[in-house]
């Protein structure tokens, strides 16, 4: 079997898995809805209570899980390629914390602003955090691990700001951002889908359009320049796209760490390093991971929900350690 066919099969299996997990995720929760009823509801639109639960409460969650999981994974894949660092991800270089700080800031300073502005504020925050990290990296040559540390430091600064805002805000507005910060899909509606859909699709399309250049970039700066690529400009553009993808998803579903780190690594094992395959596969992997995490979080102990972000961190932190152990030795010396 050729490598091409193998990849096609792998990607289709992933696609089917994602769909199955999405439909399964529609069926679990405080009220159990059998799968045949779901299919019936989705395609024939009849029934009453079930229909309400599925269409109004669970479907937007699942759609958001797919959107944001895909966006985070895509963002992680681009960042890992651009700064050539296997430990990099939107969370590690501080984008998540920056986006979270600006989103919380917007909510506490201007609570009456329409929610459309949330993604904009989050993008500004993500860009400022990524900007600081890249500025530092620009002036000093840094090892990958060192860069990750600076990202962690910048993230901690922004997180301190988030804590300050949360703790000093009045009690009534406190618990909503708390749940949001744990990376939860709880209480998400079609409004959240509508404010994030357009920017995410545009950014994802932009990322797909740049895949060929991403491949050239991975040959090294000198070869890429020789092939007629303006490396600094391309790098900046790619990082901006990646930051946008991660920030918009933070604005709607909160901080979901480690998805952007794990998905590209899993995808690379499946289809290899060519970005034409890597980017879509990472995206699918991210979708699968987040929709599974959300479904599992609801299935563990209904009616209590475990945030998808918490499950992602519980899975992701050991994964991070694994990646660190397998890569640190070759890059440190």
């Amino acid at each position, binding site marked *: 079997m050729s490598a091409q066919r193998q990849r096609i099969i792998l990607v289709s299996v992933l696609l089917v898995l994602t769909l199955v997990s999405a439909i399964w995720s529609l069926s679990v929760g405080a009220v159990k809805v059998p799968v045949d009823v779901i299919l019936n509801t989705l395609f024939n639109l009849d029934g009453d209570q079930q229909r309400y639960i599925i269409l109004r409460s669970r479907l937007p969650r699942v759609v958001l899980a797919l959107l944001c999981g895909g966006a985070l994974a895509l963002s992680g894949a681009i960042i890992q390629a651009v700064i050539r660092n296997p*430990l990099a991800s939107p969370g590690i270089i501080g984008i998540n914390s920056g986006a979270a700080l600006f989103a919380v800031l917007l909510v506490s300073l201007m609570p009456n602003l329409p929610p459309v502005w949330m993604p904009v504020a989050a993008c500004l925050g993500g860009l400022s955090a990524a900007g600081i990290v890249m500025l*530092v990296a620009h002036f*000093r040559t*840094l*090892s990958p*691990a*060192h860069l*990750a*540390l*600076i990202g*962690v*430091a*910048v993230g*901690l*600064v922004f*997180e*301190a*700001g988030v*804590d*300050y805002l*949360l*703790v*000093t805000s009045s009690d009534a507005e*406190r*618990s909503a951002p*708390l*749940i949001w*910060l*744990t990376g*939860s899909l*709880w209480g998400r509606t079609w409004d959240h889908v509508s404010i994030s859909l357009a920017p995410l699709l545009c950014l994802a399309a932009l990322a797909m359009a740049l895949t060929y250049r991403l491949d050239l970039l991975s040959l090294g700066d000198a070869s890429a320049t020789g092939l007629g690529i303006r490396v600094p400009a391309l790098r900046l553009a790619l990082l901006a796209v990646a930051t946008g993808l991660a920030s918009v998803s933070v604005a709607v579903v909160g901080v979901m*760490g480690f998805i952007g780190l794990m998905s590209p690594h899993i995808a690379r094992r499946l289809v290899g390093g060519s970005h034409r395959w890597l980017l879509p596969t990472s995206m699918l992997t991210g979708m699968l991971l987040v929709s599974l995490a959300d479904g599992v979080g609801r299935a563990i102990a209904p009616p*209590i*929900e*475990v*945030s998808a*972000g*918490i499950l992602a*961190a*519980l899975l992701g*932190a*050991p994964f*991070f*350690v694994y990646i*660190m*152990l397998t890569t*640190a030795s070759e890059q*440190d010396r």
Partner: protein
Amino acid sequence: MPRVLRYVLLAAALLLAALWSLTLGQRDDVSLANILTLLWVDDGSLARSAVVDLRLPRTLVALLVGANLALAGLALQAVTRNPLASESILGINQGAALGIALAVVLPIFHAIPLDAMAIAGAALAGLLTFAIAGGLGGRLDSIRLILAGVAVGAFSYACVRFTYTLDDDLSRLVITWVSADISSMQAGQVAPLAVWTAIGVVSSVLLAHGFNVLALGDGASQGLGIDPRRVRFLGAGLAAVLTGASVAVAGPVMFVGLVVPHLCRFWFGQNHRALVPAVALGGASLLVLADAASKLIRFPYETPLGVVCALIGAPYFLYATLTARRLA
């Protein structure tokens, strides 16, 4: 300047900071002018009771926690030979927080005292971090150590954050506690903490020689008849106990253990025997000042101590990361 004079100056600064912090609060009949009479003479006034019953325990807790965390940071930096090591970076603080959160949430752990849960959490998190970094085998990789600490810390904090989503009352309890709010400390909490601080200072003095030798490298310390592994084990254990005991009372106060030993090294040099008292005094002063700031920032509201420390400490961590040469 002779070293003794420097200690005296630091102690005087601590005393002044503590007295100043005691005058801050809602009442305006307490000032630097009459604070000493209020402390020593029981005139039965409301001002006296506000100072002695409400403010004094809180200031003392800040003082003791500051000393404990700074000593823990010093021990960790010596043990790992890494200038960025501290209990919050290595995940020990977050491990202690997880221990407490489990004790609050799960009924099985209600019988165990909070100190024990926090110390167990701190020790486990520290052990895990060291294990991942390869410390159990003897040789520590400094970058790995910190990245491992970050991962262990993130893991523990994700578990703590999970409790936010459980139940409104429970989540409020956990978040005031996680943000290190020490505004309602009681006199009974001071004495046990003071015992831990005393143990910490004495053990640090005893270990100081070992730390000095460890700084020369493993080979040299073996040559000088000191087992580097034993010093490492004792130092890391001391750090876990001091952090756990402090976190159990005041919540996870971040970055004190990073900032204070750094600043003290500028003034007292690299000798750990000289550093131990300086770091204890310095940590106490810093936290007393941070506590005073937490009363002032949004007067008349309180800003939790943990948030003040994070706002000071996080930028300092960034600075330390950028200037650390011995890292990679």
